[in-house]
């Protein structure tokens, strides 16, 4: 089971801040495809991957990164702190 968390408008489009996902996806991109095939709200959130960022176990990563050994995947738009 993978802990998947969402922030900002990704969270709003998907409709929840986090969920446990039963997945064997090898990479982040694979996980995104799995989620998109599930329901329209995921399709809406992940429509434009270039507008998104991903963190694996709280460190920024790429969409082609492996999920082996990862406990938490986070999806969010580019950060706007400061």
């Amino acid at each position, binding site marked *: 089971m993978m802990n998947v968390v969402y922030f*900002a408008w990704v969270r709003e489009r998907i409709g929840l801040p986090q969920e446990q996902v039963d997945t064997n996806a090898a990479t982040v991109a694979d996980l995104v495809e799995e989620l998109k095939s599930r329901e329209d709200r995921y399709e809406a959130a992940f429509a434009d991957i270039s507008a998104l960022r991903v*963190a694996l176990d709280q460190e920024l990563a790429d969409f082609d990164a492996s999920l082996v050994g990862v406990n938490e995947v986070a999806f969010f738009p580019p*950060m706007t*702190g*400061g």
Partner: protein
Amino acid sequence: MTVRVQSEPFDAGAELNRFAQGRNDVGAVVSFTGVVRDTDGNLQEMQIEHYPGMTEAAIAKIVQDATTRWGLADALVIHRYGGLTPGAPIMMVATAAAHRSAAFEAADFLMDYLKSRAPFWKKEITSDGESWVAAKDADENALKRW
């Protein structure tokens, strides 16, 4: 080094006065305070979301990088989350060094990295509705300076 992520307001002046006190090797202290700006006069609230855990770790790494690179005597980052009203302080950064160029550059660097690498997201609630603040290409490009 001090990093605080909090919903409560903070007193920038009191923080500045406490910062790098009692050190005779500090000649220069630079502070930056980010304030909720209401350019169009219709902002009701700025909501700041963050990623607990990752936020603190990401900021600590950025502060550590700046401290090493510019040989800072001390560094401070405070960043708020939650609902903020126009005019309220959002965050502050302070740097202390022997000389002014190090203090200035390190504070500038910290701001550039906090802006694009610390997991915060801003949403503006105006009388016309609400919208997420979009990241600017200029902010991402600013990182290339360092």
